[in-house]
């Protein structure tokens, strides 16, 4: 049994007057993959962006409740958001490599966090790219522009970039929604490998993907978390009728 890495308590979020998350409670375990599913607009992406305070950047957002990581509420006033985001990597729907070389993309994180030594930087970059299962495809062209890579390679490059910062938790916000099935398969395989070292939370609109990669699944509907549990149990024997309707395809 693994430890709880993230504990979410009574989390509410408003965009202006509109409430987008309502009393969400969740426990996310260390070195496990937790999937969040639900129809579009259910709040799952909003929720995952609360875990590294990316919603801070959006005007008019108000949040109440707690998100405790290793027991510390990340919404406390004394929390350094920059240091927090260093511990929590994030991948986005659309691969977003920077318009620079493959090497510079992966070196970006270590550089901004103060790694100046060339040799050490090269090691970190190589480890990151290997960790993202991309080394064999790009090792001979690290100086080429990252935007020349295929979509799937770009997304793995973004994973490499995140690994280079050495986070503890990695958040995936629908990481495969812009990818073809083969590229998707590679990312899923990678997520499976990464959970040995990282705690992973993944938002997906693809139920099969949740079933394939995750240990735990939460089902969101209209800003509320309807059901949370072991993935196998949630898919085979859901407690709630809403969950059953969604996973059997009767809705959503």
């Amino acid at each position, binding site marked *: 049994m693994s430890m709880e890495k993230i504990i979410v308590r009574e989390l509410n979020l408003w965009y202006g007057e509109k409430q987008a998350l309502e009393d969400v409670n969740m426990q996310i375990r260390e070195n496990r993959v937790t999937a969040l599913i639900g129809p579009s607009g259910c709040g799952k992406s909003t929720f995952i962006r609360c875990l590294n305070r990316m919603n801070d*950047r959006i005007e008019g957002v108000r949040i109440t409740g707690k998100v405790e990581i290793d027991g510390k509420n990340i919404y406390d006033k004394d929390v350094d958001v920059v240091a927090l*985001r260093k511990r929590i990597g994030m991948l*986005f729907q*659309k691969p977003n490599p920077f318009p620079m070389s493959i090497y510079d993309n992966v070196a970006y994180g270590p550089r*901004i966090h103060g790694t100046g030594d060339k040799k050490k930087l090269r090691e970190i970059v190589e480890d990151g790219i290997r960790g993202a299962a991309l080394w064999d495809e790009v090792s001979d062209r690290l100086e080429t522009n990252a935007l020349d890579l295929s979509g799937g390679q770009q997304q793995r490059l973004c994973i490499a970039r995140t690994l280079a*910062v050495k986070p503890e938790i990695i958040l995936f916000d629908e990481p495969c929604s812009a990818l073809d099935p083969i590229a998707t398969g590679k990312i899923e395989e990678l997520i499976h490998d990464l959970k040995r070292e990282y705690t992973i939370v993944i938002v997906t609109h693809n139920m099969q993907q949740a079933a394939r990669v995750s240990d735990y699944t939460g089902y969101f509907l209209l800003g509320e978390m309807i059901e949370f549990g072991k993935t196998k149990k949630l898919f085979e024997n859901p407690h709630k009728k809403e969950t059953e309707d969604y996973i059997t395809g009767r809705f959503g």
Partner: protein
Amino acid sequence: MIGKKQFNAEAIAKRTLFLFAITGALILFLIVVFIFKEGLPIFNQINPVDFMLGGEWSPSKDVYGALPFIAATILITAGALMIAVPLGISCSVFLAEIAPKWARELVRPAIELLAGIPSIVYGLFALVVIVNTIEVSFDVPTGESILAGSLILAIMILPIIISISQDSIEAVPRAYKEGSYAMGATDTQTITRIVIPTATPGIVAGIILGMGRAIGETMAVVLVLGNVEKIPTNLLDQGEALTSVILLEMGEAAVGSPHYNALFALSMILFMIVFSLSSISNHIIAKRGLRPG
């Protein structure tokens, strides 16, 4: 029957619009033709190199050397860029990335208004404020100088640099910035390492357009430069810009005389500089898929 009629109406509309559109290009072509037609004859009596590099301009002696004017124009333009570029880029970064909404809504229209002020008004302002300030602070007999020209041009091209830079900074995809923040980058790191490098082509285009404006500016410059036909050697020297000579002397030059041709040749120089600057900036903008203004 109905179908055919509509088709005809559409064809007529298309042709008419095409005609209007082509008019713009035609006008440009005619301007080039006439400026060159009036300017080129001067090269029958003086070779182009001597014309460009000659240090003396005395129409009464039939001596035409444009170097003092070219030098003054280059100096005031360079001075203006040295002031306006750092200021303009900082301002556009602030407006696009840092400013709260109310500040942006206050400053942006003000800057657009600044771009629309007639240049003679800038000139009068410069005459009263800048020239006087220079006289007082440097204790010189007259504040009319290269410095005064640079300062007023800096103010005039600031809105161009700011608005084009701001557009291009705002066009940096949000995904890049989020990727940077998600790795624990600070605002400053994200701006200096991601936003500005990505927006650089647009910023450069803005600077080049501003430069074109500065080179071609006439009314404000003629009021504050002192209009002395010698090569300026320091910032407090007086000088006369290419545009100023044309403005001041065209009235007294007899049509078809060498003096007249020489003034047109100066406008050829101006035209070619501005034309090449605007092609460079269009090229940069097209490459990045950004729109100017």
